[in-house]
């Protein structure tokens, strides 16, 4: 099962990807980040102690987290905002701490953490109008850093507003798994 979390306030690439994946027979759960109700993380620390593994804020993340923790692949789709993701997508990302592995391990000489869903594939699609080289590089580096600390594999893609639906077909192929 693939979870898509997309910011569709400007363009609807998440829905386009969902359509392609469904056609290829993949099970998809799609959350539209700018439409669901997600509060910012308050850094209360409860998910690391008092209510280990569980967020105490009662909002739509209680529906999203169970899907992420059991999915085969997670795809975040966001306009590239200052070289990163939009506020809608970042709110969801910030609230993923309850399903991070709290322990530390060493990989490639560095300390990292990991996710409870250890085999999860993690992809990001960024899009925008005439993105500069610096913006693209920054977006890709954010995805790379996420993969390192979460100990997951995945790909980052950049879509131009000139991109045609062919591009999303290609991405659907790349993020599909056997």
């Amino acid at each position: 099962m693939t979870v898509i979390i997309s910011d569709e306030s400007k363009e609807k690439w998440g829905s386009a990807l969902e359509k392609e994946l469904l056609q290829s027979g993949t099970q998809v759960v799609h959350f539209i980040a700018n439409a669901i109700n997600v509060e910012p993380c308050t850094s209360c620390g409860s998910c690391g102690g008092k209510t280990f593994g569980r967020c105490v804020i009662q909002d739509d993340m209680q529906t999203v987290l169970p899907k992420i923790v059991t999915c085969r692949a997670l795809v975040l789709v966001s306009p590239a905002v200052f070289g990163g993701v939009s506020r809608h997508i970042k709110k969801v990302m910030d609230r993923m701490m309850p399903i991070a592995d709290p322990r530390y391990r060493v990989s490639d000489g560095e300390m990292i953490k990991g996710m409870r869903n250890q085999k999860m594939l993690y992809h990001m699609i960024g899009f925008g109008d005439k993105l500069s080289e610096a913006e693209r590089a920054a977006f890709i580096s954010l995805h790379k850093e996420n993969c390192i600390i979460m100990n997951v594999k995945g790909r980052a893609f950049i879509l131009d507003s000139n991109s045609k639906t062919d591009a999303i077909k290609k991405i659907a192929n790349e993020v599909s798994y056997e």
Partner: protein
Amino acid sequence: MNKSEILHMSNNKTDTMNNSNILLLCASPRRKGTSAMLLERIRSVANGGELLFLPQKGSLDEIAQAMQNAQTIVISGPCYINTYPARLIELLERASSMGGFSNQKLYGIINGGMPYIHTHRHGLTSLQLFAEQNSLSWQGGFVLGVGAMLDGQPLEKHIRRKKIAPAFDQFIQHIKKGTSVPDSLYEQAQVPPGKIVTYLFSKLLTVMVEKRIKNHGYNVNEPNWY
């Protein structure tokens, strides 16, 4: 003092000193954490600056306006999932759509738990892109690793205090003078730990974390709640 001045001074969200037109913006939901502590340090050394906390709910127009009114802006925040928290991104998006900036100097500070610069650096990259796209003048920033452990204690308690405290104080001097800061300032103060320290540190932290979880009555090896 007239009534509006008295109200402004007694508002426990803001604290104006010396009118030096430096805006110190804390992007953390914690009032007494590391992000706030670093701004307090700047305020006492730079002998001024208005300290504001990013409200976690509601309109950000007031803060965006305060950014436009300042000559120098310093944003200090924690690193969540390799970059700044969502609420700060929201402020930057809002400020960007309001427009009206004219070359304000922007400095950024990001602090995170991991002892690696690369883990947290994206926050500063974002601020630089925001500045470039909105006619602010990016002056550089400071990445602080192993900052979460401090949890608001002064820099003199940092695990790398001998190098970090002087380096951060040099950073403050740049803010006072309005000069740009090279990345090397914070890079040279935080060389990544070697293999043995890395291994020991990871074991120690894991033991501490497992103990904390056990003390709350949970078993980290059990399936996740969700």
